[in-house]
Structures are given as C-alpha cells and as structure tokens.
C-alpha cells in the first residue's frame, strides 16, 4: 500500500516535469518576444544569442512614446475602434442571442445557420466590395469603416455563444417575472441580462479582441497614418525603419499587453459563468 502511494507521487512528479518542459517549448516564442524587447541593438544580433539580456534597456519602449509617431496615437485609435466595435456588436447581438434562444419563429433555423456560416467567411471576400462601398459612402479613412466591418466578425460569435447561454437559463424565471407583471422586454432587461452577465462580459471581451487584433480592415480602409491602429502601426514599422527587431518586439509586447490583461481578467468569468445557476435542480 505504501509503495503504491509513493509510485503515484513519483508518477505525478514525472508527468508534471514533462508538462513543464512541453509548456516551455510551446511558450518559448512568448518568452522570446519579451526578452528581445529589452535588448540593445548589438545584443539582438549577438551570436550565440543571450537568453537573458546582458544589458537591460528600456529605450525600445520609451522611444515609442516620443515624437509625432507616438504609439499613444495608435493605441488611442485601437482602443476607440475596438471599444466601439464591442459596444455595437453587443447591442446588436445580445438581444439576437436571446431572441433565438427563447422565441418560436419561422426561419429560426436559417437564421442560426447563416450566423454560423458567416463565421467561416474569409476576410478577403468582404474586403474588396466593402472598400468600394465605403468609397461610395465616403467612409474611407473614417474609423467607422473598420468599426462596422470588425463587428461583422463579432456579431455571429456573440449571438451563437449567448444563445446557448440563454438556453441554459431556466424558463421558469421568465414565467415568474411575467406573473409579477413584467413585459417580455422588461423581463429581458431586468431578469435575463443580469443573470447572464458573466456570459456577456466574456463575449464582449472576445469582440473587443477580434477588433483589437484586426489588421486587414484597418490597413485597407484607413490611409492616414494618424488614424491607424496598433496592428497597422507595427506592420508599417517593419518597412519604415528597416529591421529593428528589438523595437518591433517592444511594440508587439505593448500590443499584446491588453490581450493578456483581458485574458487574466476573463478566466474568472469563464469558470464562474458556467457554474452559476439561479435555480437548482
């Protein structure tokens, strides 16, 4: 009996060590982007490479904030576009997810399938026609163009995820609300929305991230450098100053930082959100 416990313990240690090694290999590129962003220009090209910078320099970061091409402008643009797209997507998609979960209606299956199929469409399919449409509407070089197109990625995602979310909430709650004098609309805003807020926060965060990570739309629809997002900024960085990898990596870290923060913040909601139930049994 004692021997077996010991074996289990050993097994656990072996498996854990293998897992850690695998995680290190898989996540090495992420380590590398962070480390490289603190290296000097000379050290970036050093052979053999250094795994911990000999000289830590913050200038790759500080330099991004000065001058008229300051990263703050692109950061502001990215925030504006991603936030607007998130708000628009949620305003449209949260009620739709609820509607498709709760109401009997003709054409429901087709609606669901169309949302499903739009998720599979290539960006390039929409790019050319929308460029011409925005040109006609004189929306080119206006941040509304990427906001609208980014939302087409988020809307179907939010609709489909929240639909299953609303389906899982007990229908008795609504029936009870109706008996207490709620209309369909007030029972949606006062009962269903507060109950599903973990799901809404999760899908909202994802719709923010879709727009945050988009390159194709912002690069194609916006031409003035001062209007461009961070993804377009880092893309142009490459051509502008030759290849300064340490600065590009620092820019990349700043671009990924909000994603990591959201991810850390989000985990709680994914776990908490799925286990919360108002009525048991």
């Amino acid at each position, binding site marked *: 009996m004692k021997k077996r416990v010991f074996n289990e313990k050993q097994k*656990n240690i072996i*498996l*854990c060590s*293998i*897992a*850690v090694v*695998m*995680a290190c290999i*898989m*996540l090495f*590129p992420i380590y*590398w982007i962070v480390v490289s962003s603190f290296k000097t220009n000379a050290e*970036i090209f050093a052979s*053999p490479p250094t795994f911990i910078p000999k000289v830590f320099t913050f200038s790759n970061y500080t330099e991004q904030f000065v001058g008229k091409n300051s990263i703050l402008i692109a950061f502001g643009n990215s925030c504006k576009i991603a936030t607007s797209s998130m708000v628009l997507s949620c305003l*449209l*998609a949260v*009620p*739709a997810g609820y*509607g*498709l979960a*709760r*109401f*009997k*209606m003709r054409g429901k*299956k087709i*609606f669901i399938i*169309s949302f499903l*199929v*739009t998720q*599979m*469409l*290539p960006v*390039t*399919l*929409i*790019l*050319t*026609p929308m*460029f*011409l*449409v925005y040109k006609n509407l004189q929306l080119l070089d206006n941040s509304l163009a990427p906001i609208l*197109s980014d*939302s*087409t990625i988020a*809307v179907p995602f939010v609709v*489909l995820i929240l639909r*299953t979310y609303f*389906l899982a909430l007990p229908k008795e709650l609504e029936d009870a609300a109706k008996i207490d004098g709620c209309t369909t609309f007030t029972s*949606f805003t006062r009962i269903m929305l507060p109950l599903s807020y973990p799901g809404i926060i999760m899908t909202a965060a994802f719709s923010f*991230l879709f727009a945050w*990570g988009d*390159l194709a739309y912002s690069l194609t629809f916006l031409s003035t450098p001062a209007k461009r997002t961070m993804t377009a900024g*880092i*893309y142009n960085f490459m051509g502008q100053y030759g290849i300064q*990898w340490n600065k590009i*990596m620092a820019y990349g870290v700043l*671009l990924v930082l909000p*994603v990591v923060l959201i*991810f850390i913040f989000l*985990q709680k909601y994914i776990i908490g959100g799925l286990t919360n139930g108002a009525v048991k049994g």
Partner: protein
Amino acid sequence: MKIKHTSEFLREEREGYIFVLPALIFMLAFVGYPIIYNFILSFRDVSVMTISQEVKPFIGLKNYIEVFKDPTMKISIWNTFVFTIGSISIQFVIGLALALFLNLKFKFAQPIRGLMVVSYLIPMTVTALLFKFMYSTSGGIINELLMSVHLISKPIGWIISGNTSMLSVILTNSWVGIPFNMLLLTTGLSNISYTLYEAAQVDGANVIQRFFRITLPELKPAILSVLVLGFIYTFKVFDLVFVMTNGGPVNSTELMSTFAYKLSFTQFSFSKGATVANVLFAILFCVSLGYLGLIKDEEVIG
C-alpha cells in the same frame, strides 16, 4: 382554441423578430450585400481605369478566364491546399498528443492547459512578426539553436528562400492552431465514459489497444469537427502570410487570399481581386456545407 394558439404564436414570433432583426439586418447589410456585390464585381470590369465611371462595363466570364490563365492563380490554389493540409495535419497530431497527455490526472495538467491557450489569443500580426524575427538569418534564434547543436553549419534563409518558406509559414500557423485543436479534443475526451476503459482493463487490453479500440472510435465526432473547422479556418488565413512573406519569395507562399488582396489593393484591379476571392469562397462554401451536414442535428442547432 386553435385560433387563440395561432395568434399567440404570431405574437411570440413578432416579439422574437424584434430581438433578432437588428443583428440580422446588420449582417445582411455588411456581409450579405458584399457577398452579392463581390459576385457582381467578378463579372464587371472595375479597376483604376473604370472606377470613376458611372456604369462599369459588364464583361461576362472574362475575369475568370484571365485569372485562371494567370500562372499565379494555379500556384496560389495549390499553395492554399498545401498550406491548409500541412497546417491541420501538424496541429492535429500535436494537439491530440497534448490533449491526451493533459487528460492524465496530475497536478499541473489544468493550469498548463490554460497557459497554452495564450498563443491562440495573440494578434496574428504580432505572431507573424515574432516568427519572422525568429526565422531570420542574422540573430534569428531558430538558426542559432540549430547551429549550436550542429544540425546546420550556416544559417538557413527560412522565409527568404523558396524551398523552406512554405514550411516556415505552415509551422507558424500550426503554433497558433495547436491550442484550438487541443481544447476541442479535450472536450471530446472528457465525454468518453470512464467505464469503457475500466471494462477494457478488466479484459486485459493494453494502452495501445485501448487507444485504438476505445479512444479513437469514441473521439471520432470530435476529430471530424476539429479537422473540418481547422480546414475552414486555415483555408482563409490572410494576415499571417501577408505579414510574414506577402506571398513571396517568387509566389512560393502566395495563397488565394493574399493573391486576391494583391490584385485588389496593389494592382487596383478590383474585379479580378473579387474573382479570386469568389473562387476561394466557392471552395469554402462547399466545405462549410459538409460541416453543416456533420453537425446537422447536434448541439449547435437545437
């Protein structure tokens, strides 16, 4: 009684439409309409020359004929398939291995699975630039590591040489896709009843027999949907290749998506770009129909 039922149904339907219609109209305007417009574009002559004209000339199948005469088109179709099949094979094998391994019960399994998802969340542009840096001939960590273990004697121009560029973008895309495969397959694994394994153990089946006789057959639905979804998501990849190689060197990584972009926004022959995008769409559409057939009566459309 029946009339009352019907009017109630109509009332409910009306309320339902109020909730659903805004999103539906939005998607019709910004996705549905462009798809149709794209289709129309592919039969007209829309380029820098004609863009300011009121009426764009209708030219029938001329765009399709010209696009298919272009050798780059054939290369890009071929490359798109190589890229897709290469990526999903690598992603799937590693993703399955990781899912199986992290499904064993040990302390770090859960947190490590969570950590691995990070690569899936990084914006593609950043991933593309990061790998471009790691592949580079001067200061690139991949060449340095391979040289330090004496596998190669001088740096390989991973993405600047036509022989290795496709492999390089496939590996990069796989790195992004592995967590996605792992997560979906983990869900599939957790649905397999433990009693099956217990019964097999009683019958004296070894690990390999259990894997091929229980795990694989039970995992089949999950495997199918991972592969089909993987195909759809990989087939349309744009930003990764656009940023890493922009189709080069000499078209060796040119995909249909990057080719369509180039036609529209570098050469400004919008109708040709639309034509290539349409061919890409047609192939994806067929695969999507297959996928919908797979999940027909399953959880998604309940």
